[in-house]
């Protein structure tokens, strides 16, 4: 029998220190293990002498009283919040929606293309670029397209259209009063 392993195993058993027949035989032969065993038995006996005073009925009554108060407060708070939400939830949600729409000019959760940056393929740079119409000067574009059509004759707006990306074309159709130019 491996003494180190046996001693470790005995230590783990402290609290319910028993040995089987094989272990008992080893203890009789091995003085070191026997010393260890005796030392653990003595420790076990000492530790068993110290028993905490059990919880008394009056102490438990105090605990239960405090616990009840805490639970009731917790439940009332939870129910109160629920009732408040049922009563005023719709009104609060409506106010929230109005505030959101007035600040961000869009309905929460619904994608608004006019507000959302988009990417497009630029034939000019040959790269994917962010479509950002904030820099476009409506008046300038109207005049430029008008000038182009004026110089190249009726129907030349098709040339302009060919040069535009779909996003730019959509921007022109939606945002600029071009009359019959395009």
């Amino acid at each position, binding site marked *: 029998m491996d003494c180190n392993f046996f001693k470790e195993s005995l*230590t*783990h058993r402290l609290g319910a220190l028993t040995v089987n027949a094989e272990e008992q035989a080893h203890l009789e032969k091995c003085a070191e293990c026997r010393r260890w065993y005796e030392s653990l038995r003595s420790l076990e006996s*000492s530790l068993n*002498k110290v028993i*905490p005073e*059990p*919880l008394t009925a009056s102490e438990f009554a105090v605990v239960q009283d*405090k616990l009840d108060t*805490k639970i009731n407060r*917790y439940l009332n708070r939870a129910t109160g919040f629920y009732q408040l939400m049922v009563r005023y939830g719709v009104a609060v949600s409506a106010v929230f929606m109005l505030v959101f729409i007035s600040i961000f000019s869009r309905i929460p959760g619904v994608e608004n293309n006019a507000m959302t940056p988009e990417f497009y393929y630029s034939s000019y740079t040959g790269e994917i670029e962010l479509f950002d119409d904030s820099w476009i000067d409506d008046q300038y574009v109207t005049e430029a397209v008008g000038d182009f059509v004026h110089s190249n004759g009726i129907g030349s707006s098709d040339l302009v259209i060919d040069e535009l990306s779909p996003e730019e074309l959509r921007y022109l159709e939606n945002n600029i009063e071009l009359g019959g130019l395009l």
Partner: protein
Amino acid sequence: MDREEQALISLAKAGDRRAFDKLVARYKDKMFALTYRMTGDREEALDVLQETFFAAFRAIRGFREEASFSSWLYRIAANKSLNVIKRRKILSFLPFGTSPKDEPVYNMADAVGQSELSDKIQESINELPPKQKLVFNLRFYDQLSFVEIAEILDKGESTVKTNYQKAVEKLQKKLEAYR
């Protein structure tokens, strides 16, 4: 877990206060013994006991019956007790003397009277590092298996065994002269 306890747990999960109170009554002594041994102070142990059951009440809906109810409760009580010890340690470093209890005052029913040995044992257990102390109490006094303790502490069984062994060896050394 017996059938009656299982029924009580199901009812308590559904919000039945009486069922929860019965569970409290079932486990009050075991939980108090642990919190008292861990804190070493009766008043503090009662507070921890109350906090343990309140936390259990709040969390019982989420209790998945994979572990036993007693292990689940032990886990709450163990964490609460460790928090008290941690708080006490932090407060002891504060300079303005707000430390509530520097040295725990035990009031144990001692089979051989308030002997020197009894005091020495308590002092020695109290001086163990908190986690070793917890493992020692759960194993020696609450008679839980290493598997159960590992489940409560969410640690490996070998870690728990090592902690227990270290605790026992320290106690052996400290109490050598008194045996």
